[in-house]
């Protein structure tokens, strides 16, 4: 009987030794991984996906239905498309100004309304393009750029706080869009219109996925290959200092808002194409809040300065993954928002510096308390203390 107890004790002490050796080997890489900015957002996204494996067994099934990749993963990527494009612009705006662009949703509506008006003319529902498709897309994007430029001028040259400056278009934008469309929903029945938001014939991947990834690459290249990224960061960290070293910080801010407006225009066209109609009261509704959240979830500071496009991308996908997960789990409609809020609170708390520090201290305390129980492990324990 005694022998068994001794054996069990020996077994456990060996287990602890193995565990500690493993930890001392892995500690540096682990610290590197968890110290990385993207650790928490990635961890959360992984957690959401693991949860899905448990609750929805067919979550990872991908099949081709009607010539389109379908399944939960493609639909998350598809539905996150608009948000992702908006988030890219929002990241730049937040980084450069420490403020947010509230007007992205209304800009989407304005851009799509111009496009819809040109395509349909005075008809509210038709399948004949009244103007060339490319021209309509171009005018829609131009409207987005103009709105972004308006925000940019207010913020950079008139020194109005970004939240206040963009509040103007946030309030007036949808009315402007309604004026363009004469207050009615425009239905564009020509199948070509759905190329942008659904599918180009013969391509099995939804266009929204392709376009959003294309813009992720474009913006990443713009930030990495040109000095724009560096400029945005320096102006965001300290605008006056950046000006003193010779940067035109006004122009940099202006550029960021113009890019944000352009991207909002793209999202507007993609979004309205996805449903084949322009409904200015509905398109991009409250997307600005999701975009700000995505930037924050991506580990970016909302007070400006350093930023990570990759983080924002993960943030946007996480938000959509949460929504799709809750739909897949058939959460009751009246509880949906409560669940969403709970998950987001957990993520925000988990990624706060104070919480991370507490957890680190807790792990260290647990590890340092174990070695005292057995003589053999003290050496290893001492080793990890040195680190």
């Amino acid at each position, binding site marked *: 009987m005694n022998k068994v107890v001794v054996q069990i004790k020996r077994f456990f002490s060996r287990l602890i030794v193995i565990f500690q050796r493993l930890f001392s080997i892995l500690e540096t890489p682990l610290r590197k991984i968890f110290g990385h900015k993207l650790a928490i957002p990635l961890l959360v996204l992984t957690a959401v996906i693991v949860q899905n494996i448990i609750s*929805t067994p*067919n979550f990872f099934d991908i099949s081709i*239905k*009607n*010539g*389109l990749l*379908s*399944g*939960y993963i493609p*639909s998350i990527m598809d*539905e996150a498309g608009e948000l992702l494009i908006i988030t890219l612009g929002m990241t730049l705006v937040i980084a450069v100004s420490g403020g947010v662009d509230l007007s992205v949703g209304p800009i989407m509506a304005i851009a799509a309304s111009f496009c819809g008006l040109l395509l349909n003319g005075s008809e*509210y*529902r038709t399948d004949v393009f009244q103007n060339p498709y490319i021209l309509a897309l171009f005018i829609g994007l131009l409207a987005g750029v*103009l*709105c972004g*430029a*308006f925000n*940019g*001028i207010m913020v950079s*040259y008139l020194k109005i706080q970004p939240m206040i400056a963009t509040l103007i278009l946030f309030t*007036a934008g949808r*009315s*402007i869009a*309604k*004026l363009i469309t004469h*207050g*009615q*929903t425009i*239905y564009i029945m020509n199948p070509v219109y759905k190329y942008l938001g*659904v*599918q180009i014939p013969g391509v099995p991947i939804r266009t929204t996925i392709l376009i959003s990834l294309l813009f992720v690459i474009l913006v990443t290249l713009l930030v990495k290959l040109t000095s724009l990224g560096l400029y945005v960061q320096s102006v965001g960290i300290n605008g006056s200092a950046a000006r003193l070293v010779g940067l035109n910080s006004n*122009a940099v801010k*202006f550029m960021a808002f113009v890019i944000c407006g352009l991207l909002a225009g793209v999202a507007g066209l993609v*979004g309205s194409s*996805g*449903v*084949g*109609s322009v*409904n200015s*009261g*509905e*398109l991009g*509704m409250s997307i600005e809040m999701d975009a700000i959240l995505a930037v924050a979830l991506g580990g970016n500071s909302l007070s400006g300065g350093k930023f990570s496009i990759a983080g924002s991308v993960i943030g946007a996908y996480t938000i959509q993954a949460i*929504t*799709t997960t809750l*739909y*897949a789990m*058939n959460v009751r*409609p*009246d509880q*949906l928002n409560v669940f969403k809020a709970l998950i987001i609170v957990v993520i925000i708390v988990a990624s706060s510096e104070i919480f991370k520090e507490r957890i680190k201290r807790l792990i260290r305390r647990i590890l340092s308390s174990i070695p005292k129980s057995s003589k053999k492990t003290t050496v290893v324990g001492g080793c990890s203390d040195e680190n």
Partner: protein
Amino acid sequence: MRKLLRSISIMCVLALLVMAAACTEKPAETTAPAVATTTAKAADTTPAPADELIVVGFAQCKADESDWRMANTKSMQETLSEANGYKLILADSNNDAAKQVADVQGFIDQEVDYIVIAAVNMDGWDTVLTNAKNAGIPVILMDRTINASADLYTCWVGSDFKAEGVKATDWISTRFTSDKEVNIVNLQGQLGASAQIGRSEALVEAIDKNSNWKLLAHQTGEWSTDTAKEIMTSWIQQHGDKIHVVYAENDNMADGAIQALEEAGMKVGGDDGVAIISFDANRAYLQMTLEGKINCNVECNPLHGPKVAEIIQTIEAGGSPAKVEVVEEAAFYYDTITQAIVDARSY
């Protein structure tokens, strides 16, 4: 470079100013008639030759909120016209509850003959309605209900949302006559909206009554095409071909569901596709009903003007209208609707 930036920025400001100018034009248009009629009213109370006209104060929540609301406003303006013996004073509160209460108080001070209210808020009506009652002005509530004692207003005019739902469930029972299982998914409206409550309630009761009907899933699409499409896509992945009926509580959500189904390569509407049920029956969706994509589209009638006029005439003749006056609402079916019906639709 700087010059270029400057000229670009000046152009942008100009362009936006033009947009803003265009934007301010419209409210000016809508307020103009209200102001005009108010002054006309002030003028004609003193000499009193136009005393024959029945003066109606109409407190609308937001005249251009949606296609439905626009049709609703227009119906009131057209029915209660001077040619028909009325003088309508329209006060658009732009969804500002406090302004609306002030508007109604203004009607009482102007001594109008009748007050019609499409309430922004359910609460906060006691004081002003008591004032109206003391002044002897009948108050007709339109479309939206309020939390106030029933003796403070004359009657309520609007849609019976549950009756709308019953029309839809009746159609389901004519379509699925056998004992085979009928799987239904329900795209609900904004939770708590009276239209959502009534329409969902009718469906739940019908499912209780028919043992072979089954509610596979329900979720709120918040009246939006985009959200409805997203939810429907998720349901298709879960249930696939098992879905027999989509019960979408408004036109926009039906549109989203149809697109999701079509993109998944499923047949929609008609005699053998997934049956689509929609509510509101706006023009674009009556067209879709005609095309066979929507099987059953139950109207939500915004044309309250004639009913309000009827009630006013009842009171004028010394009668008392019923406390709840329901507007007539039809249902349109894919196999019986005609192009003429679609063309006749104004909203």
